[in-house]
């Protein structure tokens, strides 16, 4: 009896390994497609757009981690996105001769660099700040919220409230951070290259692809294995997790911080590819859009988050080029359709039964027309195996 169990679990293991191999090959193939083929055939303008969409796909991964897997709907990821973007933009603004300060300060009569700008002169510090500052902010916010066992809708409302606080702060502080005008990075230089020049943009594009793959692998690693299963357990029944001897608070704070860090990296990459970061990255609709991308692609699938972000943003560009006024209606309709018809998103639908349906449509596979329970019931199968021996 137990030897059969072992052989079956070995079969499962082999299947799992094969799936992992296929996934690895697919990742490498897509990365090559994005890095080598598309730059050769797409015009520069389109490639830059794609780069921006791919950096938005990185935030979507972060949202999928916290919402899709752990079940915490964050409406405040704009904070972490913007913090990463501002960190990088501040460094670019500091590329000046000794003693000078960024030009916008003179408009407001500020002659001395605010203290918190100082460390952003250093490139290594900036690189760490891009993910560490959002992670710390997310961790602190998460700790305060989760320690008090605030869940569900209340968590979402709190994250949105935090978003509005951050927006108002960045929007109002002209003397510290140029307020509503934001920080323009286009004309700044990094390592002797103008940020908006094509070689620099190509580098940022390649970095975006690299980070997208890296963040995907990170999320994949986090969500497989015991830790990932525990995240799903927290989503499904948190008090059971507690009574099983786990303290969910630490796990939730950690995942929220990781998710924030991922959003920070995405924000930095997005900023240099769009040439500016303003407080509008912390407007309420933008953070809700992030959630829509994940919902459209499919929660708790990771691939779905990337796919949804690219698809929705591509549709937006296409539609707003043709009919500028229609986009918002379309976005609303898209969200309604997904929620009512495809609650698991596109990838979720494909995984559950869409794939078989498509195979049927194209004539590769016919439907099972008998009552299939006997074929699939493991108890029946086990008895059959024993009988045949």
């Amino acid at each position, binding site marked *: *009896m137990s030897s059969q169990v072992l052989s079956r679990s070995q079969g499962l293991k082999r299947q799992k390994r094969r799936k992992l191999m296929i996934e690895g090959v697919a990742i490498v193939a897509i990365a090559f497609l994005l890095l080598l083929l598309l730059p050769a055939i797409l015009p520069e303008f389109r490639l830059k757009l794609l780069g921006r969409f791919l950096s938005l796909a990185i935030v979507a991964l972060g949202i999928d981690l916290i919402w899709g897997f752990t079940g915490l709907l964050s409406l405040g990821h704009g904070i972490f996105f913007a913090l990463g973007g501002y960190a990088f933009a501040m460094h670019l603004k500091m590329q000046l001769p000794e003693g000078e300060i960024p030009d916008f300060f003179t408009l407001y009569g500020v002659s001395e660099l605010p203290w918190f700008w100082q460390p952003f002169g250093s490139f290594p510090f900036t690189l760490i700040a891009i993910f560490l500052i959002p992670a710390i902010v997310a961790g602190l916010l998460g700790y305060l919220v989760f320690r008090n066992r605030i869940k569900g809708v209340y968590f979402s409302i709190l994250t949105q409230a935090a978003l509005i606080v951050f927006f108002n702060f960045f929007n109002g502080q002209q003397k510290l951070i140029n307020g509503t005008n934001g920080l323009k990075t286009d004309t700044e230089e990094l390592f002797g290259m103008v940020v908006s020049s094509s070689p620099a943009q190509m580098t940022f594009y390649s970095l975006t692809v690299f980070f997208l793959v890296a963040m995907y692998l990170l999320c994949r690693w986090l969500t497989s294995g015991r830790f990932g299963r525990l995240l799903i357990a927290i989503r499904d029944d948190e008090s059971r997790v507690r009574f099983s001897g786990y303290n969910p608070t630490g796990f939730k704070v950690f995942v929220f911080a990781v998710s924030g860090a991922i959003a920070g990296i995405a924000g930095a990459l997005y900023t240099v590819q769009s040439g500016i970061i303003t407080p509008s990255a912390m407007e309420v609709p933008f953070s809700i859009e992030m959630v829509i991308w994940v919902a459209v692609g499919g929660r708790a699938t990771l691939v779905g988050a990337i796919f949804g972000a690219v698809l929705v943003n591509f549709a937006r560009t296409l539609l707003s080029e043709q009919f500028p006024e229609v986009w918002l209606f379309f976005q609303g309709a898209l969200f309604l359709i997904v929620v009512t018809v495809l609650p698991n998103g596109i990838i979720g639908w494909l995984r559950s039964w869409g794939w078989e349906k498509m195979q049927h449509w194209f004539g590769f596979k016919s439907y099972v027309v008998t009552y299939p329970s006997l074929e699939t019931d493991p108890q029946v199968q086990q008895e059959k195996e024993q009988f045949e021996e």
Partner: protein
Amino acid sequence: MDEKILEIDNLTVSFDGFKALNQLNLSINTGELRVLIGPNGAGKTTLQDVITGKVRPTEGNVYFKGKSLVGYKEHEIARLGIGRKFQTPRIYLNLTVRENLDLACNRNKNLLSTLMGRISSGDKRKVVGLLETIGLTAKADLSANLLSHGEKQRLEIGMLVAQSPELLLVDEPVAGLTDEETENVGSLLLALAESHSILVIEHDMEFVRQIARTVTVLHQGSLLCEGTMEEVQHNPRVIEVYLGETPEIVDS
């Protein structure tokens, strides 16, 4: 003292003045299988809430192996060795049966070792053994939401045992089960009673008769009586509580 695994000492819990438990005294010996019965609102579930740290007592104390449990959090009490089964099966529906058991049996439940640690072969063997005990070997790799109600109940009991607790608190394990499933759960609990102390809350009298050795009756937050099933059944106060206080009305 040392043979008592659980001691409830003069315990009172009041919610806005309503006393769910009222100066309750109760103790369970190590290795005992105890059944707790009582009409609705007698405080049975509140008692479990207090033992597992979900509710803080207003007065009195709970001792587990001589150590006071007041002030500990739910997960800390679970780590001390008290497992709790809820009234409705609470399992992780989107994980497989095996994964459900594995999460419960993880020995180091802090963040870092859950993230970094590898699943030891000892844990794997323990899970395989548990699957056999709860009779779900064939369905080990099925998602738990495909299980029947009775199988879910057995899985949750299996998850409790995976935590290697010394005391199991089981709340109405056979509510809504068929007769056959009820008997399965009953014999599972009897098998577990050989190596654990168990406190069962139950309404189903047939089931209580199947498993009970000592029965405790709660009424309005206090202990009404304690004894074997026979004694309890013939106790006039118990009959009064269950049938209503004025038997004349029942007659007419």
